[in-house]
């Protein structure tokens, strides 16, 4: 009779694995000793040492399994047999896609151009982590899926079926390279846009896009939406302002009501906006403002920013 201890291990071992009871019975009947001293968690021992079955059709003989777990003195005899069995997913079965691989591939393919992370796969199909990892590896080697970088979670691996191109939600759109923002490219485009607007005095979106196309600033042709994004960013930078055409004066060539863009004021590109009254004294930029009191530890009398400012 198996002891209480072995029973609890037995049920834990079998959880989620759906192994035939007979197989496990055999295992425990042979009074298999688990080297718990080296591996305190019997489950982890099993998961790393007992290869899972690929299908139910040919249950492996218990002896093989058991011998694998036997103490080293007994193991010698069955070593040759075991290694022969272990070679099963060898070169011969390379082109064959297993059941699990099929399911995993199906899940990834269903996600289309969004792809899926391993975590998402696990949620959809109830299969152990290690199996999924394995499937992914073999699918990758068979070029059925590919790994893509996602801007949402750059640390986590993301997989996509080979026939799809990653969607803009994954890559972040045209402004992202390898999952991170291409700031240099954006800044160059911004400056070029500003120069075009400055040259034209008042410009419409189409005008700016045209001018950019003619000057070959970017090797890749920019869509109208991309130009708009750049110009909108310039507006947020307070370099350019958005105005509606009045149809008179400088807007003479533009229909009334059309949105146009104009450079702001007299400063050049990258010029700082006018410094406000509060921003021009240390308190304006002080991160400790809320802790500053007339006679506290942080006070105008002891302030280090003031010290620096009034250093004559």
């Amino acid at each position, binding site marked *: 009779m198996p002891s209480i201890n072995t029973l609890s291990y037995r049920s834990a071992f079998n959880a989620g694995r759906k192994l035939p009871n007979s197989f496990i019975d055999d295992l425990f009947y042979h009074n298999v000793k688990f080297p718990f001293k080296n591996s305190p968690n019997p489950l982890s021992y099993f998961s790393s040492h007992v290869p899972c079955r690929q299908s139910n059709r040919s249950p492996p003989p218990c002896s093989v399994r058991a011998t694998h777990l036997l103490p080293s003195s007994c193991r010698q005899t069955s070593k040759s047999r075991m290694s022969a069995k272990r070679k099963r997913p060898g070169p011969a079965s390379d082109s064959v896609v297993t059941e699990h691989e099929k399911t995993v591939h199906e899940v990834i393919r269903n996600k289309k151009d969004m792809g899926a992370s391993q975590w998402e796969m696990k949620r959809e199909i109830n299969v152990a982590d290690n199996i999924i990892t394995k499937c992914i590896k073999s699918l990758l080697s068979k070029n059925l899926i590919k790994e893509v970088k996602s801007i949402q979670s750059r640390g986590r691996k993301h997989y996509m079926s080979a026939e799809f191109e990653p969607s803009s939600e994954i890559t972040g759109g045209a402004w992202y390279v390898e999952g991170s923002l291409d700031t240099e490219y954006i800044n160059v485009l911004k400056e070029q846009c500003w120069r075009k607007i400055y040259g034209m005095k008042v410009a419409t979106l189409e005008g700016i896009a045209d001018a950019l196309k003619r000057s070959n600033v970017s090797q890749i042709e920019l869509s109208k939406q991309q130009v708009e994004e750049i110009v909108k*960013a310039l507006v947020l930078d307070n370099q350019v302002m958005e105005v509606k055409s009045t149809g008179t004066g400088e807007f003479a060539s533009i229909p009334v009501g059309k949105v146009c863009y104009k450079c702001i004021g007299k400063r050049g590109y990258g010029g700082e906006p*006018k410094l406000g009254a509060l921003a021009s004294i240390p308190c304006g930029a002080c991160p400790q403002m809320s802790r500053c009191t007339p006679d506290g530890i942080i006070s*105008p009398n002891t*302030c280090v920013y003031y010290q620096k400012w009034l250093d004559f």
Partner: protein
Amino acid sequence: MVPLYGIKCAVNLITTHFGDLVAKVCECLLRKGPLTLQATVRFTELTSSQVKNCLLVLIQHNCVQAFVLELSVEHGDAAKANTQYIALFDNIIHRWRFNKFLTIVSQNLDKQCVDLLEALLQHGRLTLKQMSDRAKSTQNEGDDVILDAVQEAVIKLLNAHFIERCPASEPVITNPTKQEVSARKRAAKSAKIFEEQETLEQRVVEAAAPSEALRFLLVAQTEPAADGGKDETNSSIVTPGEKRKRDALESETEYGAADEQVVLWRVNFEEFIRRLRHKACVENVKTRLDDGAVTVLKAMLEATRSTEKKVKTDNSVPLSLNSIYEEVIKSEEGRNITFDRVRAALIQLSCPPFVIAANESYSIDFKKIIELAQNEEVESIVLKRYGRDAYRMFRLLSNSGHLLETDKIADATFVEKKETPKILYKLWKDDYLQMEKLQVTGAKRLSQFLLWKVNKNILREHVLNEMFHAALNLVQRVAFELEPEKEMLNIPRDKLINRQRKVRLLLESSHMKLDDGIMLFHDF
């Protein structure tokens, strides 16, 4: 509502100008709202006569206004009416701006007027006799000559609305009737909650103010001096106010010559603030448009100023193109401007709508100009404190005026998706943004979105409080730098004095500039 640091600034000002006792009474009134004499005595724990004297000083300097609150008949005995005292926060803070006021007068009028205004600023309220007595003590001329000169200066100041008759000492205010209360409650729901208290201060000031006709009238002189009525003749529009003025002229016998000596005069802060407001508008437009547009705007301000009833006016009175041109060519820099240039300048001005054009007449959109200046001020703080990415995000939210989702903000501002929430969180923590969490239960899991928004009203209060805080810091630092103990340090005397001079100059000029910012958020 007065911001917390605003009260601290006001108390600091009163302490340096009138000492601790007066400041104590003033602080009590500022913090607790209107109080009777007895209540003030109880709260300040001073003697009755001390409080009385302090209140007299504050009233003399227009920092406190007395009023009688008459309870409505429903409450029973109507006779139960006590005199209450209310601190006028704005007038206290105006004490910072005396130099600015003097500069304005020196730019517009002669030295005699500047001297007279200085005396009024120093003493709060003066009668004509006191003014001439003061002049006598400084000048060695005949009594009549001095009296004439003083009177002339007073007339000039009155015509420019720089000084005014003092308000009634104890106006009677009736409690709002039921209808009014319910109307106000309804309004309060849509407006800010603190409207109630402000209306009391406003109501008291309104009730105390002399009628528009008498306000700028020196009784002895029925005919304004030759250069006097300039303001009236300049504007082609006859306002109802002017008609009332004429009516009042006829009834002036009530205020006989005997009264003349007792009438108290004081500085009309409102007019100065109005002029500073106009100046701020011109400065703001100057940074955006060329000199021609600025000249036209100046002319428009000059032409419409006398018709403005209160400081915080949204729009000026509409002017026709012809009357604008007439005004433009009056000024020196406008003399070489052609009619067409004025028309072009007006088009330029209406592009970001500083000027609203309707039916061939033009009016200045003060509200828009001031709002733009306020936005610029806040944005520059954000830029300085949180960097360029935060600046872009803040501008996006401020311009859109509604809730936006974190990822949308990241896309529009070209900031890394991971960095965006960090920056937004910093802004939120310091009360520059409002955040709302939105939880959506999807097919399989609960997803949470963060939405962000700029609430301009709350933000304005917050920035104003920070500005008062910074102003208080500057004042405190000046006092600290000039402490006499510093002389005991091992620094050579001339070096110390040199340093003190530089530090003081920098701190005080910064304070003046900061005060412009405070006016932008509080007074304009």
